[in-house]
């Protein structure tokens, strides 16, 4: 029977939740890396035992962790698991994220816009998102704050910036969102290894069609009334983008305000908020088998980051947007004031499709019937930063 493994990053450690295909009885493992902020944990599609985790701390900075046994044991790439390595120069620098400052490409990469509109140098703060390659367990991408994308081809031991993103020309116009200037979304195209999409708060969405060498903004159709030019090429606070792998190029976006879709790989966007009670939010995801079925968790507003009216409701559209239904069975419908952050929803590929999300209050909810009903797997974790799920044979 198939199994699922849910990888949960929280403000104080990581947790691994496992169940069989019925998704009724769960085992909880953790906390891993107790006391550290775990922004993201994700498994390799090419080798489900290979997991990557971003571990960070305001005191001690960034650490990258890797598991080669499905989360049972972990080590920092380049250091032997479980014991100090032999004396001598370290062979790797798995937490060394150095922005490209080469003479050739450094000049346009020097500054971005600060909160007050002045220019500010790029400063590495943390890894928000790790996206393992679809085909090679040793290749993994990292989306970082201040916004940039890095790639490792040796299992996370060494990282190199894909500097064409920051350097394509609009970098000086990017500015931090409330959570920092983070690159939080990386989507790989299963039908075209040269194509990927990323999203940045607050710059917008970008696409490469040549494996990361060159990038272009893809924000036509976005309207953000909180920036000086609401239809600017960049500057939009995109919160998350999702795609069903069976339909590369059809993208769904939760912007700061507005839920959007694109049917042309991001070249243009249309608003699909429809009858949502509020279209501010962070997460968005797509059903594994029904590419027109999408999920969001509306949040009251940009000033009040909790669900509307004290009710935790997932909204589902079976029509690719505009027509939404509230999913409430099993979710608290009074006195609930949690948030669901941008990387904190995931879908499995079982039939029926499982949906998972984690809250700022430490609950992780699961639905084994595509959202019709929900149960909490755990209720009292630290605030959840990210949720990913692996469907295992």
């Amino acid at each position: 029977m198939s199994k699922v493994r849910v990888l949960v990053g929280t403000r104080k450690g990581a947790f691994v939740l496992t169940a069989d295909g019925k998704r009724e009885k769960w085992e909880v493992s953790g906390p891993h890396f107790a006391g550290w902020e775990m922004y993201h944990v994700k498994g390799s599609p090419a080798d489900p035992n290979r997991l990557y985790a971003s571990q960070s701390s305001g005191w001690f900075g960034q650490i990258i962790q890797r598991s080669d046994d499905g989360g049972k044991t972990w080590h920092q790439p380049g250091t032997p698991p479980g014991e100090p390595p032999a004396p001598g120069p370290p062979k790797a620098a798995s937490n060394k994220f150095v922005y490209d400052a080469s003479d050739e490409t450094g000049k346009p990469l020097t500054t971005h816009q600060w909160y007050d509109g002045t220019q500010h140098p790029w400063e590495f703060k943390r890894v928000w998102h790790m996206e393992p390659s679809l085909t090679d367990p040793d290749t993994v991408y990292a989306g970082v704050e201040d916004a940039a994308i890095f790639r490792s081809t040796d299992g996370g031991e060494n990282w190199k910036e894909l500097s064409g993103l920051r350097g394509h020309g609009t970098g000086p116009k990017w500015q931090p969102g409330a959570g920092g200037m983070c690159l939080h979304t990386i989507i790989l195209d299963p039908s075209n290894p040269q194509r990927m999409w990323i999203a940045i708060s607050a710059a917008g969405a970008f696409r490469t069609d040549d494996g990361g060498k060159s990038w272009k903004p893809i924000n036509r159709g976005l309207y953000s009334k909180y920036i000086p030019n609401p239809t600017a090429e960049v500057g939009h606070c995109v919160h998350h983008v999702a795609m069903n792998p069976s339909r590369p190029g059809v993208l769904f976006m939760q912007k700061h305000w507005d839920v959007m879709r694109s049917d042309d790989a991001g070249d243009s966007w249309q608003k699909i908020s429809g009858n949502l009670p509020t279209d501010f939010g962070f997460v968005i995801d797509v059903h594994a088998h029904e590419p027109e079925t999408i999920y969001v968790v509306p949040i009251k507003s940009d000033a009040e980051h909790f669900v509307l009216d004290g009710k935790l409701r997932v909204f589902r559209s079976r029509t690719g947007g505009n027509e939404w239904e509230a999913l409430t069975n099993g979710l608290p419908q009074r006195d609930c004031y949690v948030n669901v952050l941008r990387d904190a929803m995931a879908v499995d590929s079982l039939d029926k499709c499982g949906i998972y999300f984690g809250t700022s209050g430490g609950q992780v909810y699961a639905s084994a019937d595509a959202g019709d009903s929900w149960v909490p797997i755990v209720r009292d974790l630290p605030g959840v930063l990210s949720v990913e799920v692996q469907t295992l044979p």
Partner: protein
Amino acid sequence: MIRVILPQHLRTLAHAGSEVQLEVDGAVTQRSVLDALEARYPMLRGTIRDQVTRERRPFLRFFACEEDLSHELPDAPLPDAVTSGKEPFLIIGAIAGG
């Protein structure tokens, strides 16, 4: 033998106890002690000093012999009591919230 006291999270990363003992060649300074520490425990690289600038991370402080050495120059000699191993060199996380 130089004694270094690590904060809890770095002990976990290094798979070490609260105190580690290091051989340091030449002058005993903040830089030479931290170089020796990172050579023996490369998993600590970047957690005490910035990977690029090699400067002390802002929320960490260095103490020895009941003195705050955080703002001393990295190549200044450490107190004799640290050099002799009588007193440890302490790496401490600044106190700041949960």
